[in-house]
């Protein structure tokens, strides 16, 4: 397969970036999007045309959350429920023009080319996405005093890999789906419930502080999430935010 690529090139965080056009040939329809970029980089370095294109990646099986490219107007490209590394070139047609951009958000500054700094997510997690005490090893499922459907909901929310596609897709660059998923996966289980309201408050305050936008219920995040986290997690986050206002008196 043959493609025309328009890739965002940016020397460093402060440099002015621009799109560079590359032609690439002999791409197998079975290779992944990142393998296609590997092939391009080999070509660039081998022929000494340019520095290789920088992009984040690690596990290449859709569970680490490192990779993430904004491909032709969609985070993780033109497929549902996959990360960029799981996107196959057969999803494109031969001769396509492909525009590749980094995540765009105030809280996700570009480091170089297609790599963005997502440590804002880590800061949100540090603000409350944990349980303060040691809860021991994994207990048997039937010894946790919760119904199956609650365990399912917590598990679905825990699928979030923190790739940032929700922020990239959102017209407001809001991190509500990410925070909603974290709050749900910890707060629905008894071990996390004790600190639940404080967690909701601290994580949301941190999220606003870091410059993420607010949610206007467009649900682009839900459409683009590679782990298909549901918008109901955002509703839960909103509900618990209102709940924490009245829920617990920190003084007294």
């Amino acid at each position, binding site marked *: 397969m043959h493609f025309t690529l328009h890739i965002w090139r940016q020397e460093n965080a402060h440099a002015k970036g621009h799109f560079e056009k590359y032609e690439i040939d002999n791409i197998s329809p079975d290779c992944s999007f990142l393998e296609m970029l590997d092939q391009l980089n080999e070509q660039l370095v081998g022929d000494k045309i340019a520095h290789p294109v920088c992009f984040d990646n690690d596990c290449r099986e859709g569970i680490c959350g490192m990779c993430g490219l904004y491909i032709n107007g969609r985070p993780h490209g033109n497929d549902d429920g996959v990360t960029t590394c799981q996107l196959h070139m057969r999803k494109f047609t031969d001769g396509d023009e492909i525009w590749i*951009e980094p995540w765009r958000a105030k809280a996700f500054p570009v480091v170089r080319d297609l790599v963005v700094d997502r440590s804002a997510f880590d800061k949100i997690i540090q603000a409350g996405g944990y349980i303060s005490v040691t809860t021991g090893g994994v207990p048997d499922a039937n010894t946790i005093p919760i119904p199956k459907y609650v365990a399912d909901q917590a598990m679905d929310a825990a699928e979030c890999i923190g790739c940032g596609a929700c922020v990239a897709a959102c017209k407001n660059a809001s991190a509500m789906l990410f925070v909603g998923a974290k709050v749900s996966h910890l707060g629905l289980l008894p071990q996390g419930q004790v600190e639940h309201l404080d967690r909701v408050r601290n994580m949301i305050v941190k999220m606003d502080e870091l410059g993420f*936008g607010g949610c*206007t219920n467009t649900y682009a995040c839900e459409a683009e999430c590679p782990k298909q986290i549901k918008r109901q997690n955002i509703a839960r986050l909103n509900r618990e935010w209102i709940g924490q206002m009245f829920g617990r008196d920190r003084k007294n």
Partner: protein
Amino acid sequence: MVAVLGGFLLIFLLFHMSANLLILLNDGGAAYSAFCNFMGKTIAIRVMEVVLFGALLLHAVVALWLAATNRMSRPVGYHKPQKSKTHTTSKLMMWSGILIFVCLIMHFYDFYMVKIGLVKGEYMVKTEKLQDEEMSGIMQLANQMQMTPSDLVAAMKEEMATMGGDDEEADNYIESITAKIKVMDIVNNAYTNGNISADKKWIHRLNAEEKAVIKEAFPDSDVEPDFYYMARKKFKVWHIVLGYLVFFAVLFVHLTHAFPSAFQTLGLNNYKYNRAIEICGKIYTWVVCLGFAVIPIVIFLSE
């Protein structure tokens, strides 16, 4: 904040729409006028009016502020326009909201400003407020002689002049009731032109001059804006009807997102009720927008 205020406005819209449907009753405006009279008089409703305007403005201001800060969250935009599957109406909320505001200015010019007296419109008055003994005496006589009250008085005056004598007293009397005679003429005209409600409680379609005359003769008569006939008059003009239909279409776009969105923002939903909320939202939006739209359409087509 936007959701709470918006929810309040949703309730108001439903109320406003159902009240407006009274215009379509074929009773010469009796029910609608009685309703307007009630709305104009009750203290609680006057207070709610202020609350409503406050809520509307705050809803707009907070939403615009949110939109501005949200925009700042992405200083550098994408080159390729977004292609994610999203709710289109949700992205149009700000623009549809601004359009609704523009349409509201038209709406206020047509109706609300008449109420607060900035624009001249048509007025109505309760018949019972215009009755006193002098009035009914002269009215009866005029009816018997099949003359208008002012003609009757003129004739009486002429007769007195031909009879001669000291008529200063009579002149003074006639002078003192001139204003009332004018009112009688207005009432008489209303009867002959059929500008009276079916239950004979209201005299309709008074213009600004007639309003002034009535106010002078009967200071406590409360001449009110005649929204029933103003609506009927306005909705005979095709471009006003079209303007309002565009208004309701924009409102439809705004409400389609607004209803379920308010529930989402307040966290008042779960897996069990999402479908129900969605269906209720659709029913609400269709009922409100069609309910509003049917009024100008029916009036326009029936003339």
